[in-house]
């Protein structure tokens, strides 16, 4: 009954070429793919209730003034105009977020792939150890407190202690309260943490590449590892590459926890303020949910734009 191949699909159309109503056709389609909908339904039901509905609700809320206590009041585009015309801190946050995204996004994406690719050439035992080392920072979530000690402002901090001991300087530097250093430090720690999900997906993806393709490539005249990488490995991994790109984009634009853990909230002169910390400020401290939703929406649109751009670029891989 599942053998609805080309014949099953085309013959009824030939027999009755008269306009079957659009609804009847849709219904038929639904019935034919019944099993697919059944397979998807438990996931989709939960996904829509706890992710899609709240997101849609929040998108709508961005046009309201809502302080959680009173009933929401419609204000139209006011939240957005205030955001872009009247909010200096948001502009700083936007600038910082772009700095983060432009640096950590591509660097960590390329690093994820590069390290996964090198590691994949090692023997299984060493591969296991190296994968663990690179992946461990992102699963041992609470470990980034160590960076607080490394960059601690007194001479007990590791970096200060080290630099003083070896005579690079005499006085300890207040790394995390000096505007000059905050942003680079947060970027560094973010990079350290960011070899996570996509790195793992790349490793798994590299292991599922068809080895016969590589052998065939060698016969067809591919003779160094760079050609193999560009013509065989990368195109075979396109699904994982797209997955990694989306993750790196969301990760790079949504930096907040690390900035708060290292630089405090708010950071000195907003030096490490990001769009998400700005959002948290309005959402969970000032309870201006409408305004916070507008910030979230702007971030959302920026991410979608970046994502579309990246996907376009990734389609050119291996051509």
């Amino acid at each position, binding site marked *: 009954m599942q053998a609805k191949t080309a014949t099953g699909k085309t013959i009824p159309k030939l027999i009755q070429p008269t306009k079957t109503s659009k609804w009847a056709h849709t219904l038929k*389609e639904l019935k*034919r*793919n019944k*099993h*697919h909908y059944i*397979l*998807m339904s*438990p*996931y*989709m039901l939960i*996904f829509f209730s*706890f*992710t899609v*509905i*709240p*997101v849609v609700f929040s998108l709508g*809320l961005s046009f309201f003034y809502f302080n959680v206590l009173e009933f929401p009041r419609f204000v139209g585009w006011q939240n957005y105009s205030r955001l872009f015309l009247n909010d200096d801190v948001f502009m700083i946050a936007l600038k910082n977020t772009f700095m983060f995204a432009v640096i950590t996004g591509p660097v960590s994406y390329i690093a994820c792939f590069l*390290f996964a690719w*090198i590691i994949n050439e*090692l*023997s299984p035992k060493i591969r*296991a150890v*190296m*994968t*663990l*080392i*690179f992946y*461990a920072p992102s699963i*041992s*979530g*609470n*470990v980034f407190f*160590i960076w607080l000690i*490394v960059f601690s402002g007194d*001479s*007990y901090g590791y970096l200060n*202690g080290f630099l*003083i001991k070896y005579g690079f300087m005499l006085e300890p530097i207040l790394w995390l309260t000096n505007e000059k250093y905050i942003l680079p430090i947060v970027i560094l720690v973010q990079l*350290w943490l960011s070899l996570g*999900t996509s790195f*793992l997906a790349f490793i*798994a993806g590299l*292991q*599922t590449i*068809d080895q*016969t393709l590589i052998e065939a490539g*060698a016969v067809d005249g591919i*003779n*160094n590892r760079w050609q193999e990488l560009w013509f065989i490995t990368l195109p075979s991994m396109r*699904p*994982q590459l797209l997955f990694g790109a*989306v993750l790196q*984009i*969301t990760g790079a634009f949504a930096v907040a926890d690390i900035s708060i853990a290292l630089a405090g909230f708010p950071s000195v002169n907003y030096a490490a303020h990001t769009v998400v910390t700005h959002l948290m400020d309005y*959402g*969970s401290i000032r309870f201006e949910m409408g305004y*916070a939703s507008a910030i*979230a929406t702007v971030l*959302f649109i920026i991410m*979608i734009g970046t994502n579309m751009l990246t996907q376009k670029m990734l389609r050119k891989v291996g051509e």
Partner: protein
Amino acid sequence: MKMIAVLRTPKKLNRSFLVSFLLFALLALFGAFMAMPLIYAVNNAFKPLDELFIFPPRIFVNNPTLDNFFDLVAIMGNSWVPLTRYIANTIIITIIGTAGHIFLASAAAYPLAKYRFLGSKTLFSIVVLSLMFSGHVTAIPNYMVMSWLGWINTHASIIIPSLAFPLGLFLMKQFMEQIPDALLEAAKIDGANEYRIFWSIVMPNVKPAWLTLMILQFPMLWGTDGGSFIYSENLKTLHYALGQITQGGIARAGVGAAVALILMVVPITLFIISQSSVIQTMATSGMKE
């Protein structure tokens, strides 16, 4: 030379020695950078109190001691809710959440990856788009949905939403796309229905993907503290309980280091175990055409 012997050789490509060496050196250098804080965390847990505050600070421990762990046990023994309760709560949430998520996400990903039907494209784009929305503003609508369902202060409020995180479906779909269509068609000709194909053909073939997903989901749930949904102490998780202990400041710095190590060790152990099975399954995988 020893390093190079490690590289897999039997490929017929011209691999220059110099490039291999440089790539490996790069890997070793960054590996050291990545590992340094973790080595420090491990060492810290075994440091006696006087070494924790030594000047100049040291990474490695001189006189390792288990005192920090004994202190932790002593503090835990005095707590109002027994430690086992927190552990049980965490294990329930983590196991149901992870296993359920892998199953539901795979079931939903299979049709999306392998067939085109009404709404398939739209549904998948919604999943991808939802990844890009900041969770900080959906907290209130989420809370409203939960209270409407009467799930506040139950483990369901943590477990059920975690079953349908968008990330898992996305990952699964990307991996399932690589399964050759010929394999599915052969099964169909042999008389298998969709559910059978999903369970006996597709699932075994994406083992690396579901182990990856498990490694992703597990630490997330392991680290949950109950969020804004769980209030009674009886239902709180281990992460929350240990977090409370370390609030003691400098006096409990040693205990804090021990706690950090415990929270870290469990996901890492799981990772090591599952990783070795990833490598094993790869050797016998029926993925290749």
